[in-house]
């Protein structure tokens, strides 16, 4: 039983032969199961989509008129010879790990995940399995995150100092997930929370679904300058340094990402402040999550795959690297994926 491949890795992405479907495929396929709405996971052009009820509105917002069906967390569904279910991944609102069972053999595709509850999205729920396909974007021991409350306090202090000096606080964050997590976590500050159009659109969708988000306001050419001065403006990273940002007046720029843990990356981004906050698991989170699955086989994908594979092997796992065509939130392109994720919407 142990060697039976429930899932295999093809040109189009992860494929289940027994159910004839793909998970987060990067080429158009007849039937796609989607972990979450980020652009490197949810691509256009598939015949049919299956995602959690909570992920669907953003998927529709981004991909337009698609044939899509929703599924509840934990609900089991038979597809051909496979039983599938979706389980919270704690990455962004609506995100899921996908469990696939064929003939008693259970494989789980993690999608993107983080283990620390962020107060906004459905918290990560480990799923027991025989084989676990895990992302490892931050699969190096240099990546460790401080508790969210600590980082939120740092951001609030920065916002307060800027407001006192009459500066706009311009914070770069991915439009889906990170932006909303920040506005929910940062709490009451010295001024209003304003948003870039890409962030506002996704925020609207999520608010409509019932996620508890604070009031936000879209920045427009008519936005009152006095109101801007003490404001926290949340925008996709690509908007930092753009003509749009220059119109805001005197700004202090901040950027919230796991990559900010490294001084070299922090300096390269050229923001005034880097805040270490990620929607992916850190080193300890990855190790804890993998241990909690009870899996003996682990496939690693996205990130420092060869290093992380070797580490897992040294810990007694049967570990392999799965090549990916696209590296979504890798350090080289921290600004691109989210920009595409939001600006490609209808």
């Amino acid at each position, binding site marked *: 039983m142990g060697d039976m491949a429930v899932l295999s890795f093809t040109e189009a992405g992860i494929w289940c032969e027994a159910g004839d479907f793909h998970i987060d495929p990067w080429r158009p396929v007849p039937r796609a199961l989607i972990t979450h709405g980020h652009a490197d996971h949810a691509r256009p052009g598939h015949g049919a989509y299956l995602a959690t009820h909570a992920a669907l509105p953003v998927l529709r917002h981004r991909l337009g008129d698609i044939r899509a069906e929703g599924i509840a967390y934990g609900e089991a569904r038979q597809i051909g010879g496979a039983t599938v279910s979706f389980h919270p991944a704690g990455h962004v609102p609506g995100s899921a790990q996908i469990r696939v069972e064929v003939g008693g053999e259970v494989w789980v595709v993690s999608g993107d995940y983080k283990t620390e509850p962020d107060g906004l999205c459905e918290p990560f729920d480990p799923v027991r399995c025989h084989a676990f396909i895990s992302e490892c974007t931050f699969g190096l*021991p*240099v990546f460790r995150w401080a508790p969210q409350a600590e980082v939120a306090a740092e951001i609030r202090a920065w916002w307060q100092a800027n407001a006192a000096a009459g500066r706009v606080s311009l914070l770069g964050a991915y439009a889906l997930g990170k932006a909303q997590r920040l506005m929910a976590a940062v709490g009451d500050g010295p001024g209003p929370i304003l948003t870039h159009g890409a962030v506002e659109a996704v925020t609207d969708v999520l608010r409509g679904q019932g996620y508890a988000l604070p009031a936000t306001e879209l920045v427009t050419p008519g936005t009152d300058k006095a109101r801007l001065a003490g404001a926290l403006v949340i925008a996709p990273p690509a908007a930092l340094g753009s003509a749009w940002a220059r119109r805001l007046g005197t700004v202090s720029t901040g950027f919230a990402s796991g*990559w900010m843990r*490294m001084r070299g990356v922090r*300096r*390269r981004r*050229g923001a005034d*402040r880097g805040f270490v906050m990620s929607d992916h698991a850190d080193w300890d989170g990855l190790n804890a999550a993998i241990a909690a699955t009870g899996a003996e086989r682990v496939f690693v994908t996205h990130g420092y795959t060869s290093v992380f594979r070797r580490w897992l092997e040294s810990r007694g796992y049967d570990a392999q690297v799965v090549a990916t065509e696209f*590296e979504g939130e890798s350090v080289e392109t921290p600004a691109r994926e989210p920009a595409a994720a939001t600006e490609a919407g209808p």
Partner: protein
Amino acid sequence: MKRFAALYTALDQSTKTTTKVAALEAYFREAPDADRLWTIALLSGRRPRRGVTTTQLRDWAAELAGLPQWLFEDSYAVVGDLAETIALVLPEGEAPGGDTRSLSDWIAEVKRLGTLDEPARKAAVLGAWGTLDRTGRFVFNKLITGGLRVGVSQTLMTRALARATGVPEPELAHRLMGDWTPETVSFESLVLTRDPEADLSKPYPFCLAYQVEDGVQALGSPADWLAEWKWDGIRGQVILRGGQHFVWSRGEELMTDRFPELARLRDFVPEGTVFDGEILGWRDGAPLPFAALQTRIGRKTVPKKLLAEAPVILLAYDLLEAGGEDLRAAPLAERRARLATLTEGLPDEVPLRLSPEVGFDDWAALAALRATSRARGAEGLMLKRRAAPYVGGRRKGDWWKWKVDPLSVDAVMIYAQAGHGRRANLFTDYTFAVWDGDALVPFTKAYSGLTDAEFREITAWVRKNTLQRFGPVRQVPGELVFEIGFEGIQPSPRHKSGIALRFPRMLRWRRDKPAAEADTLESLRALL
């Protein structure tokens, strides 16, 4: 350490000069003298003697973090900085933030490490890591490994210190020069009081030039400008005071003993004289290639044989002090005239020459002369405003270098490695090859000259096209072509290609060129 760690964080977080100077000024107002002195020392590149090897640091950090050696090394390759890697992988200490010691206390601790036996040394380092928070650990590690760079130039530091102490900036700049260490001076003696004895050896802050970028026409009337050849030697100040002589490099390194032939100047030049010029290998009235001088760099004392093979002279182009009087406020034309008088009629055996003026009537004529630079062994021209005073530091306007375009060759990238510091996560360090028959022979490395966007694109390509990994190095197919510029080329038996380049860098990515059309080893050799 907390106060210094906070200063470090403030400097590191800011990209704005005014913010940095303000943070430093506030620090210099509050910190105790011993800390102020060490801060000046650290920011000007001085550091305590290393009492621990980096191998020991890596071993202990990996052990404490519970990581296998290879994983620590792989992490280091990604981060690109040892002190930072250690600070990032260490588990939370027992009492982070419990540190009450000052910067100078910690430096004393770093110095003490060298006197301990290994078990005690290890215990002391682990103890330090246990007490300090992450920034504190990073600074502590940097105190051991060196290279605490915070993007503050000597000029900015001097400005902040001047504001905090009230000592005028130019005066202060002068006082901070020289080969002092925090062990040999006090804050009081270095910064606040004038010590005529110590002043004897002190050079003036060097005036630095910018490269001409917008064309020389923009400089205005040719009559306002003095042109000289720009030679590839060692920029230096030669000081004759109190019956002694001192030779300083631009990096403020005292090089007196490396150029013993310059002692002859004492017999021919009056006391109280300071020259600014280029130290050059020299034979039969002409400069030797830089390679000759290179054999003498890095040696504290020079054997007789080398003295005979690569004799040096000072090609003087400025006079900063004469008869003990500071001439820097006088216009260049006046300083030059006095320099000419001083050097006139010296016997040939005296290793001092006046850097000759290159005469020209209009910019076009000068451009034509510049085109002959390489044939003369020069790097190009220097242009200096005749009416300008001598101002230390890099200031746009009065001094320009007008170098000839570098030599170049189209080469194929065959290995890539992640960069360091700011570019720790991009593949920015490449090894390049040229064709030798149908084989690609590596001949140089280069790591600068492209934009961040290009580096990002190439990094993505390298990731997808890795053939093999050798630690942090990736072998890639020979497909991408780059134009490599360099300043000089010489034979080198140590290299597989038989040649070595001076100052290689990427000029541009030749997307238009297939690898098959890159240059050959033969065409490179033709440049020798």
